């Protein structure tokens, strides 16, 4: 545990016996998807669907294999020296500002890389079936590969600037893929187009990224470097004031709220469902949206120096968890329920980070990637079966028609609800326990988080019952086409279902593997004990009884969903008519979109049109440019008379000039 102060030995020495060391080839991991992007992007239309699919998935598989090799190398090292750094070249060097292009692989980024490439590969394979016959097939795969590249850059970058490049890269791919069906309307009621949804995601993320960028500036101003190793080492030993740390941590967290869809910048994620379902699974559930959690965990050293910022992170996280969960209760769109669920689960991860349990947050990130990707892909399979239908009221009874989808979806549902034995149970319970037991946590946070857990179990099983149980509610044409998805889609579902079950056993409390794997990252610069306090033996009983409590809450949520949607069909509608105000508030999503529209969008549009365009741009900028042209034109119209076209006039000028110069020289 006490590795502070000890220098890190040369990691290469202990794995020389392998002959081939992955740490010199770290760049291969992000390089493969980049190759896929270039091939599919340039030649995709000529290659045909099969080749594009194989190349698109193959490059991600290659990355995954490279990542596993690196992982094995990493495991061969003693836990406190598990760190590979590979610097490729110096990217920027001006004065005292120097940034390298380099990759950093420690337990934290290793975990992320394995999730991104592993889950990413399954989703790529699934997409071959899901996107079959789409005219933008090659475009889709090239964007997906580009995304994987950017995401790997984000998690592997060895400094803040490279991380930011990846951060913006995934944002770009998110925009491109949300607007993939650029010619379609996404939301009939509001008239939002798919392209509009992409723009919304991009603009909301700009707000967060602005904060992130300011945070990076402040880090450079404070520490004089952007390299993780240097910054964190300096942060631990320097005498920088708490206020500066708080400012840095909060600014970075603003970036995280944008990318990871937390209050108040979560509004883009539900509309991001305009993209194809594999995109929702990969980008808007498993990987990109967790970038904020990764960033906070990566900067744990900075956060631990700023208790106020930690508190903000925890409160925002838990508030988002419960707030988003309530909106999922009434949403009728299968993908939007999952989107709100994602926001809610991300809130959980931030809660974990906020109470200092960074490893628990990352653990939940991993299990969430499994079961939420599973749920999204399951939802995609349902849509595939129902000719693209996403509305829960038009589903029902699918259990019989799509058995594989049903069983795998059920596993995902049980996992996210926190039923014992599945992955979600272990990670969620770890967070709940740390919320209560950690020095940064509190009882209030615990009970709000517990309430969110109950809501989660309820809305997930509401969705399961509405989609798969009861009588079919689709029309005859859809019913006629009803079919189980092809193997290329169901096999990834089954693999993810298995992972959703066993994924939790990498982090069983007290036998925990993942936390022992991750902790050295967080304790590298921080004395042990500053993190969430280790549970003492006396509290083991308390931990068990709290575990029982959270299981009871989860089962209660499932039970109520069963009662409302299976036993007494129509009970939900009755409840809605009895509480019309509350129901309307939830259906309209707390009017947040409307409030933002009135507070920010419309005033900004008005200001842009009436000031920035009509006055600032037209009058000031165009006026300056045109004015300069007019002035010079006026002067020229007088001066050009000089140019008569008669050579003798020029010769006279020449001679007169010569005489003047000669005369001057003589007189002088």
């Amino acid at each position, binding site marked *: 545990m006490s590795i502070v102060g000890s220098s890190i030995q040369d990691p290469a020495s202990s794995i020389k016996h392998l002959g081939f060391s992955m740490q010199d080839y770290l760049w291969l991991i992000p390089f493969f998807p980049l190759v896929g992007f270039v091939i599919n992007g340039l030649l995709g239309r000529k290659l045909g669907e099969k080749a594009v699919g194989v190349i698109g998935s193959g490059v991600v598989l290659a990355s995954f294999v490279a990542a596993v090799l690196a992982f094995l190398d990493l495991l061969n090292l003693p836990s406190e020296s598990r760190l590979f750094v590979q610097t490729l070249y110096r990217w920027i060097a001006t004065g005292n500002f120097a940034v390298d292009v380099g990759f950093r692989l420690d337990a934290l980024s290793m975990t992320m890389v394995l999730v991104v490439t592993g889950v990413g590969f399954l989703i790529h394979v699934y997409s071959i079936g899901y996107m079959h016959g789409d005219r933008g097939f090659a475009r889709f795969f090239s964007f997906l590969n580009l995304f994987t590249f950017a995401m790997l850059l984000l998690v592997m970058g060895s400094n803040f600037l490279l991380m930011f490049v990846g951060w913006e890269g995934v944002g770009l791919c998110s925009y491109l893929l949300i607007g993939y069906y650029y010619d379609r309307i996404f939301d009939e009621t509001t008239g939002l187009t798919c392209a509009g949804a992409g723009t919304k995601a991009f603009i909301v993320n700009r707000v967060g990224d602005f904060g992130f960028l300011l945070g990076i500036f402040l880090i450079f101003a404070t520490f004089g470097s952007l390299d993780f190793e240097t910054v964190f080492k300096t942060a631990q030993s320097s005498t920088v004031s708490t206020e500066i740390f708080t400012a840095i941590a909060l600014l970075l967290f603003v970036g995280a709220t944008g990318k990871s869809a937390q209050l108040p910048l979560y509004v883009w994620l539900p509309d991001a469902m305009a993209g194809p379902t594999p995109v929702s699974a990969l980008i808007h559930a498993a990987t990109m949206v967790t970038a904020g959690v990764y960033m906070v965990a990566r900067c744990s050293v900075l956060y631990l120096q700023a208790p106020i910022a930690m508190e903000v992170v925890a409160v925002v996280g838990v508030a988002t968890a419960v707030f988003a969960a309530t909106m999922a209760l009434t949403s009728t769109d299968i993908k939007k329920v999952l989107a709100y669920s994602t926001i809610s689960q991300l809130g959980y991860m931030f809660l974990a980070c906020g109470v200092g349990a960074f490893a628990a947050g990352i653990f939940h990130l991993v299990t969430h990637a499994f079961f939420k990707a599973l749920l999204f892909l399951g939802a995609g399979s349902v849509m595939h079966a129902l000719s693209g239908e996403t509305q829960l009221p038009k589903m029902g009874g699918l259990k019989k028609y799509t058995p594989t989808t049903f069983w795998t979806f059920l596993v995902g549902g049980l996992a996210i609800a926190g039923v014992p034995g599945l992955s979600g149970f272990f990670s969620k319970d770890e967070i709940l326990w740390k919320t209560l037991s950690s020095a940064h946590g509190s009882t209030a946070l615990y009970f709000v988080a517990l309430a969110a857990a109950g809501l989660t179990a309820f809305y997930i099983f509401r969705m399961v019952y509405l989609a798969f149980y009861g009588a079919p509610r689709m029309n005859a044409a859809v019913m006629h086409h009803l079919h189980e998805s092809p193997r290329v889609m169901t096999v990834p579902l089954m693999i993810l279902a298995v992972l959703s079950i066993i994924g939790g056993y990498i982090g069983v409390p007290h036998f925990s593997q993942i936390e022992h794997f991750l902790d050295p990252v967080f304790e590298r610069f921080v004395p042990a004990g500053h993190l969430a306090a280790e549970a003492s033996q006396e509290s083991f009983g308390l931990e068990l009884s709290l575990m029982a409590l959270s299981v009871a809450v989860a089962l209660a949520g499932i039970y109520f969903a069963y009662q409302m949607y299976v036993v007494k069909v129509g009970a939900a509608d009755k409840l809605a008519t009895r509480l019309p105000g509350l129901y309307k508030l939830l259906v309209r999503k707390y009017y947040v979109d409307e409030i933002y529209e009135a507070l920010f969008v419309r005033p900004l549009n008005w200001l842009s049109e009436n000031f920035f365009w009509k006055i600032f741009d037209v009058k000031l900028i165009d006026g300056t440019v045109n004015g300069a042209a007019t002035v010079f034109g006026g002067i020229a119209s007088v001066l*050009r*008379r000089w*140019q*008569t*076209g*008669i*050579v*003798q006039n020029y*010769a*006279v000028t020449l*001679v007169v000039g010569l005489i003047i110069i000669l005369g001057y020289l003589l007189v002088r």
Partner: protein
Amino acid sequence: MPLGYYLVLSAILFGIGVAGVLLRRNAIVIFMSIELMLNAVNLTFVAFAAHLKNLEGQIFVFFVMVVAAAEVAVGLALIVAIFRLKETVFVDEINLMKW
């Protein structure tokens, strides 16, 4: 004869040449004026060469004469071409190169 006489003559010739170039309209006359200026310079060269007992000035004169001959060839060709186009050799009527 003293050097000064040659220089004065040369200056007078040069002045006549300049005046011709600046004042005459006929391109051929302007050409002749230019020749006058060149030869004024040649006279100076020769005068100085004799005065300084130095051959270089005399050799330079040959260069100037060669250049002048070439120039006449090119210049007259230009004037012929312009005359074919505009049917005039008066330079004040050839003023297309203006605003």
